[in-house]
């Protein structure tokens, strides 16, 4: 009996020890395998967040890809994307762009002329989930609202809003198992000014020696010689003659159209007639790649505190905004001014903006 107890105790001890050994061995082996998998410090940032992109977002991003391919030629275009951004939606979008033939450059910050970013805002309207997508590629923005009436079903809820381009795009909203089209009139693009009107943009100063000499030679009481235009670029007062601040930019261009927009006295209000003239210019005359130069003028007495300078450049800015609202990128609008308390004679109108359309020489 005693022997039996002793044997049982020994067995228990043996079993316990064996278990312990097995555990230690397993632990050691697993530790070994962990060490085996130590990754080299040469490993770069990981990517490929495996979170799946839902059908709603896939449908919207496929739509966006269709518009992007009409705005940028895939074979000739390289898009930049931040390599640290592992956002699955962006990854999915980039995959679609790669499949479309675009070159993709992974950058460390926001380098490049065609840097890609997007925002996705969720909201509710009348109890329906809404998604607003805004994709930016360089200076071009593409935005649209979508509603999500049912799970995994999406419906366009606005027209496409494009800014920074006047390229015409063909919007085809084809109904599918994941997409319904409630309002066919939304299948179009409208051109808008960018919502980011870069008020914080750095000033670009003119610093030519001639200008410095002129400034020192002129009386301080006369009209100023230069001021900032709507892009915060310092421009010359064309009242004094001389060439346009942007003349070198137009070396390879020829003027194809000219018109004058007349403003009311001491006014920067465009009015319906002028808006319609601008519409005609943009719709009928403007082609992609054209440049619009405009000179805002205020020559003569004014009772406004901003003076002739403020009035002239304000008018130029007002027309610039109107052009941008119709989808023309800021880069393609060169605005300057002409201001003085006296008439400029035949050279410039007293209260108007001279618009000239320039096209690259064949």
């Amino acid at each position, binding site marked *: 009996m005693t022997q039996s107890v002793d044997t049982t105790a020994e067995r228990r001890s043996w079993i316990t020890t064996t278990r312990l050994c097995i555990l230690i061995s397993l632990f050691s082996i697993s530790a070994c395998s962990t060490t085996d998998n130590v990754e080299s410090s040469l490993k770069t940032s990981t990517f490929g967040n495996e979170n799946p992109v839902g059908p709603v977002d896939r449908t919207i991003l496929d739509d966006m890809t269709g518009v992007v391919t009409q705005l940028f030629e895939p074979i000739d275009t390289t898009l930049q994307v931040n390599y640290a951004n592992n956002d699955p939606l962006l990854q999915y979008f980039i995959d679609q762009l790669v499949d479309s033939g675009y070159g993709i450059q992974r950058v460390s*910050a926001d380098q490049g002329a065609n840097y890609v970013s997007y925002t996705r805002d969720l909201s509710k309207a009348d109890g329906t989930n809404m998604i607003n997508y805004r994709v930016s590629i360089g200076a071009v923005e593409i935005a649209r609202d979508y509603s999500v009436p049912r799970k995994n079903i999406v419906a366009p809820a606005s027209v496409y809003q494009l800014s920074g381009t006047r390229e015409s795009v063909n919007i085809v909203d084809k109904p599918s198992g994941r997409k319904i089209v409630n309002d066919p009139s939304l299948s179009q693009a409208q051109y808008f000014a960018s919502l980011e009107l*870069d008020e914080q943009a750095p000033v670009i100063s003119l610093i030519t020696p001639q200008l410095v000499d002129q400034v020192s030679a002129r009386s301080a009481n006369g009209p100023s010689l230069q001021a900032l235009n709507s892009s915060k670029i310092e421009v010359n007062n064309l009242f004094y003659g001389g060439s346009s601040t942007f003349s070198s930019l137009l070396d390879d261009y020829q003027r194809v159209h000219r018109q004058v927009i007349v403003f009311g006295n001491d006014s920067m209000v465009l009015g319906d007639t002028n808006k319609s003239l601008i519409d005609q210019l943009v719709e009928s005359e403007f082609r992609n790649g054209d440049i619009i130069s405009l000179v805002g003028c205020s020559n003569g007495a004014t009772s406004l505190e901003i003076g002739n300078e403020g009035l002239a450049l304000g008018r130029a800015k007002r027309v610039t905004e109107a052009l941008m609202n119709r989808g023309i990128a800021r880069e393609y609008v060169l605005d300057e001014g002409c201001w003085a308390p006296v008439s400029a004679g035949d050279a410039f109108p007293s209260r108007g903006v001279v618009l000239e359309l320039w096209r690259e020489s064949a």
Partner: protein
Amino acid sequence: MSTVRMFTPHAATLLIALALSACTTPGAKVGVSTDALTPRITSEPSVLADTDAVERARLQLVATNLIATLVQIPEMRPSTATLQVSTPQTVFGHALLRALEDAGFGMQLVSADQGTNYVSYSKRLSETESGEVTDYTLAVGKIQLSREYVVNGDAVYPSSLMNISGTDSIADISLADDIFIEQGGDGSAFISGAIGNGAANSDLQIITLDVNDFDELPQDKRTRQDLVFAEARQRFFEKDAERSAPNLDQFDKFRRTVLIFDDSTTQMMGASNKLAVRLLVRQFSDEDVMVIKACQAADGADNASMTRAIRVKEELAGLGVPTQASYIAPCARTSYRHASDNSPTPVELIHYRPN
């Protein structure tokens, strides 16, 4: 005492010792994950999965060495060059494409060999009197790099000079060969240097690098691939600045703007700065010069400001300003800024025109 009782402690000790000793030998092995070698643009996951992690690490080193050389060739500046690639079918192909991506090249997926910068590569094993050597070749358009490497245990070392053809601009290239020393070695040595178009060039320095066991660095202390590329690119820009310093007496200042970076470390320019650069570049003509003044350090060794200057130079290049037409000015001391100041940081950009 029973036999079982006597045996038990010895068995336990033996098993523990066995387990621990088993742990030490393979524990020295290193490797990289399949993720680290997977190009984002296209890949064949099964190819990588079937390969040993150590072999992947060796190939990553070889790819790093080749691409760090490529980014210093003026025609192959990552900020402006877009390369055409096909889906890789080998581990070396994966390592190369991933390295090209991480170096900042634009990558375009093509079905065949379309494009002027089509990427092709090869790996050839040779049995020589010195043992087995592997010759790795990378070709991008007309530019070709090739070098032999030899495997020694878990490590890989160069066994020939880097042969660069298809470009005349190799005098300033500095090879990233230190990454091989970090693996450690048994007192051996390898040759370091480059030759152009298969011929020796007196401008190029050829040296021998020793590798000893005390050179071995722990994995987490070795130079990361992205840092290797960043250093190589920075070296290129520094050399380029020395090479292309314009005589500003022959130019007049035309325009000037000041870009503000949010802090002293960021590379993000932001939409406003990018717009200002776009507007400034709009009036850039062939003979013009852009001067970038970013460095405000008294001793001229401000790496952070050099990085910002390079960032602006890359932005200019992305907008079509040739590398040789933009110039990073030497440091100019400012008295108002302390080295630890992390407030918004200015970079002055001046547009010059011939007088």
